[in-house]
């Protein structure tokens, strides 16, 4: 195999290169200044410069459909959207991290370095058109995250979270790698386009291929916290510093779900032999929705509640992914998934982000009851939380409603009628816990313990997100139709 590559390939991956170079700046400055931390605003500025550069380069590549590095990476509509999502997530995370005592400590330059490199990993996952580059992307992303979580100034829970995430994450990666090796053994290639050509036929004839596919899907299920592989999520999300929780619950999930979509778009679950696999995935989606929502009801800690809610949201996206995987009008499912990821990212980022404002010390954690009386004390924060919660619950006319509408539509159209009903039941359950903070803020008058920090940048970012939740609801159509036309090339 030749190892040459063209100039164009480098142009295509230029966002990642820009991010990597930007990530070196704060680290270099710190070394040159004799290991003293420089101003944290300057540090995140270097990061933001990298993110904005990457964004510009991504936009410059909009509308193409090309493969690079002999087909290992693919630059199409799906990867474009995921790049934009993770870049926005990274920009907000940088701002949140600066304003959070758990992350803004004497290792902040290293933190920014790792965050940007985790982002590079996410970009690779978003691009990957090859199971090996997927694995490299996932590992780059995850390894940086393990360290990032452990860097928190909070002494106990974050270390536990980092370790749990590391052990279970490695376990899942190993399972996935095992699966990939079976796929390689039966197909003779790890490239998606090679597997696609033979997948339906192999699925019917070769049990080892089926085995490989199942194991790879299990690994992906772990990454996107699908039931019953979700049990790490609440612990890790709660223990990690809040900005990183926002980063993981949106960025990691978005790219992993996107790859899941790419994998399922190979029509690996279309054939007759795969009926069982498809049914199993259907049940996993239904159980994910129920397990996430039911467990979230019982949580008093806001971060843990949102962690469980993010499990439930994975279930909704799984509905869309299944709808994209059964042939026919798969494009409905795929665009539903991408739209939902965009919607979910905005609202989850905002919901976790606003928690940062309540954290005065690294150990702070916010209970629902702490919010009481916030509606009178700080109308801005209460209004933002209300908007995010209503959107997460899928109440019109927020963007969350349209996300659910598109996903449910795809599911109904593709014949997953009962799955849609389960989704509906889950949504009803979710309304209960999404309303709890609103009830506490506006309807209970006693003074809660929550104190809002005055962090200008974070407030600005949250306000922008809250406004986007409403605005994106009204321009849902233009986003959705753009996504649909961008994704047309996903299905062969």
């Amino acid at each position, binding site marked *: 195999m030749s190892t040459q590559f063209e100039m164009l390939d480098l142009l295509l991956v230029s966002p990642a290169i820009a991010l990597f170079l930007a990530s070196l700046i704060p680290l270099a400055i710190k070394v040159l200044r004799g290991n003293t931390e420089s101003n944290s605003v300057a540090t995140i500025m270097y990061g933001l410069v990298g993110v904005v550069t990457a964004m510009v380069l991504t936009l410059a590549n909009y509308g193409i459909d090309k493969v690079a590095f002999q087909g290992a990476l693919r630059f199409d509509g799906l990867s474009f959207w995921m790049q934009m999502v993770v870049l926005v997530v990274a920009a907000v995370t940088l701002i949140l991290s600066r304003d959070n005592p758990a992350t803004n400590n004497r290792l902040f330059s290293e933190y920014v370095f790792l965050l940007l490199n985790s982002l590079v990993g996410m970009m690779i996952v978003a691009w990957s058109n090859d199971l090996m580059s997927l694995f490299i992307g996932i590992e780059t992303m995850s390894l940086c995250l393990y360290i990032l979580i452990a860097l928190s100034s909070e002494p106990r829970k974050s270390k536990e979270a980092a370790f749990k995430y590391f052990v279970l994450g490695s376990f899942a990666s190993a399972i996935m790698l095992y699966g990939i090796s079976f796929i390689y053994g039966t197909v003779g290639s790890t490239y998606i386009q090679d597997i696609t050509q033979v997948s339906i036929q192999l699925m019917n004839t070769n049990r080892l291929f089926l085995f490989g596919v199942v194991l790879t899907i299990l690994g992906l299920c772990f990454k996107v916290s699908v039931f019953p592989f979700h049990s790490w999520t609440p612990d890790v999300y709660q223990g990690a510093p809040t900005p990183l929780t926002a980063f993981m619950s949106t960025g990691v999930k978005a790219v992993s779900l996107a790859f899941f979509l790419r994998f399922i778009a190979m029509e690996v679950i279309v054939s007759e032999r795969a009926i069982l696999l498809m049914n199993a995935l259907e049940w996993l989606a239904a159980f994910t929705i129920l397990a996430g929502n039911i467990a979230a009801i019982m949580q008093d800690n806001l971060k843990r509640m949102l962690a469980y809610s993010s499990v439930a949201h994975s279930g909704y996206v799984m509905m869309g992914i299944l709808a994209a995987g059964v042939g026919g009008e798969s494009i409905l499912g795929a665009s539903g998934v991408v739209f939902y990821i965009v919607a979910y990212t905005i609202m989850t980022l905002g919901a976790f982000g606003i928690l940062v404002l309540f954290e005065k010390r690294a150990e702070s954690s916010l209970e629902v009851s702490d919010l009481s009386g916030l509606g*009178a004390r700080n109308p801005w924060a209460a209004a933002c939380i209300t908007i995010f919660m*209503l959107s997460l619950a899928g*109440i*019109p*006319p927020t963007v969350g*409603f*349209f996300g659910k*509408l*598109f996903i*449910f*539509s795809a599911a*109904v*159209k593709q014949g997953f*009628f009962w799955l*849609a*009903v389960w989704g*509906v039941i889950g*949504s*009803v359950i979710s*309304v*209960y816990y999404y*309303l709890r903070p609103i*009830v506490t803020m*506006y*309807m*209970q008058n006693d003074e809660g313990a929550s104190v809002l920090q005055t962090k200008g940048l974070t407030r600005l970012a949250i306000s922008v997100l809250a406004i986007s939740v409403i605005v994106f609801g009204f321009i*849902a*159509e233009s986003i*959705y*139709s753009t996504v*649909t036309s961008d994704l047309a090339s996903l299905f062969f």
Partner: protein
Amino acid sequence: MLLSLLIFLPLVYALIVMALPARFSRPVSLALSGLHFVFSLVLLARFDVTTADLQFVEQMDWVKSFGISYFVGIDGISLWLVMLTTFLTPLTILGSWTAITDKVKGFHVAMLALEATMIGTFLAMDAVLFYVFFEASLIPMYFMIGIWGGARRIYATVKFFIYTMFGSLFMLVALIALMFMTQEMLGGQMSASILDFYKLEIPFVAGQFLNSQTLLFFAFALAFAIKVPMFPFHTWLPDAHVEAPTPGSVILAGVMLKMGTYGFMRLGLPLFPEAVEYWSWLFMLLAVVGIIYGALVAMVQPDIKKLVAYSSVSHMGYVVLGLFAFNAYGLTGGLYQMLNHGISTGALFLMVGMIYERTHSREISQYGGLAKAAPWYTILFVIVTMSSIAVPMTNGFIGEFLILLGGFEANPIFGAMAVLGVVLGASYMLWMVKRVFFGGEGEIVTKYKSAGLDLNIREAVVMAPLIVLIFWMGIFPNHFLRGSKASLEHLEKNMRTYELGIHNPSQKDQSEKYSMAEERGE
């Protein structure tokens, strides 16, 4: 533009109220909502009563790939419900002048936002737009009960929200399924327009539950049955009503419950004719059970407000009975009873609120002999009671009589059972009146007598239009019914093949406007 203004102006009003200092909230929102009522009278005057088609239609693409549009229009079915909304809102704001003392600005913003979403629900002719307004109306009501409500307000408001949301999400799935059916019918392009839904022929198998028409019908029916609420989905209602502040109860009973019955008329009946015909016995049965059950439970309530709340269950049962009887009498009576219930139950809740403001008690046993202490209040209360128990000359009589006629025509047994409900209705209301207003002086009356229990001028002004309407609607029902006649006849005659056209206003020679009839003194 007319209908869009009707929907969105209240939101503009809400923004104005939000921008002004709190001391202006009450007068400004009263003036603006009053103005809005006058504005809706313009609509009434320009409404063409001869046609069953949609009028003042506005259509604009919204989510084009799913065929969802911003599509509003009005016909005889929605006309009076819109008028009811714009009519009750200023009265409620005036009625709550002294009842709401906390967070006054927020309350009026919620009230005006609620008005916008309720009008939107009645005017939306796109199924998804309808769903959006239907759901969005929950949010202001949720805050209204939760912030300004009584002691158990949080339990009540969360129950109300989740219960309603539960039903309507099933409706959402059914809506999506219908949208894909239009795609097959229209050859590729999806549509969420209710007019396109009417053209669908949804496969139906009698005697089976698992066929598309039956399933879709029940998904819609669940949403509306919870909203109405029909027995056995009514349990949220007493909680919500008892805990809601007076204006919340008035709007909830007066308008929001009608969204359910309106939904049956707009979507449930015309979309699924075979399923409706096959399953109408079930709905009529539940309606009759609701009528009798509601009346019996109301009878034993120790709390006036709870009594009125259960009477709502009973009265809304009549509406459902009328609709599912599906003949000219039943439909007309059903629609009329929606308006009656809005006015008489709205008035009852207002009056209960007025006395509660003075005595802070709603326990029937603590009252007695109120007639002497508050004669004007008593007179008005008795008039409203008469309307509620359907005494001739009041609006309630026309509605219930038509429904009973329709009920007998459709099924004599259910008709007879509903008549039993009328008797029970009269007995619990009159018994309550007896215990509260007559007999020996109750402890609470003695305690507050010196402070003055009778109506003040503001309250008299609130009640006057309601009392006038009670008699007007009772004596001249045609003034109101002629607006809906064409639409109701159209619905009744074309049950199997119901379709709605869009009115073309250029054919002026045929049209007959509401204003003309009034000039003729009809």
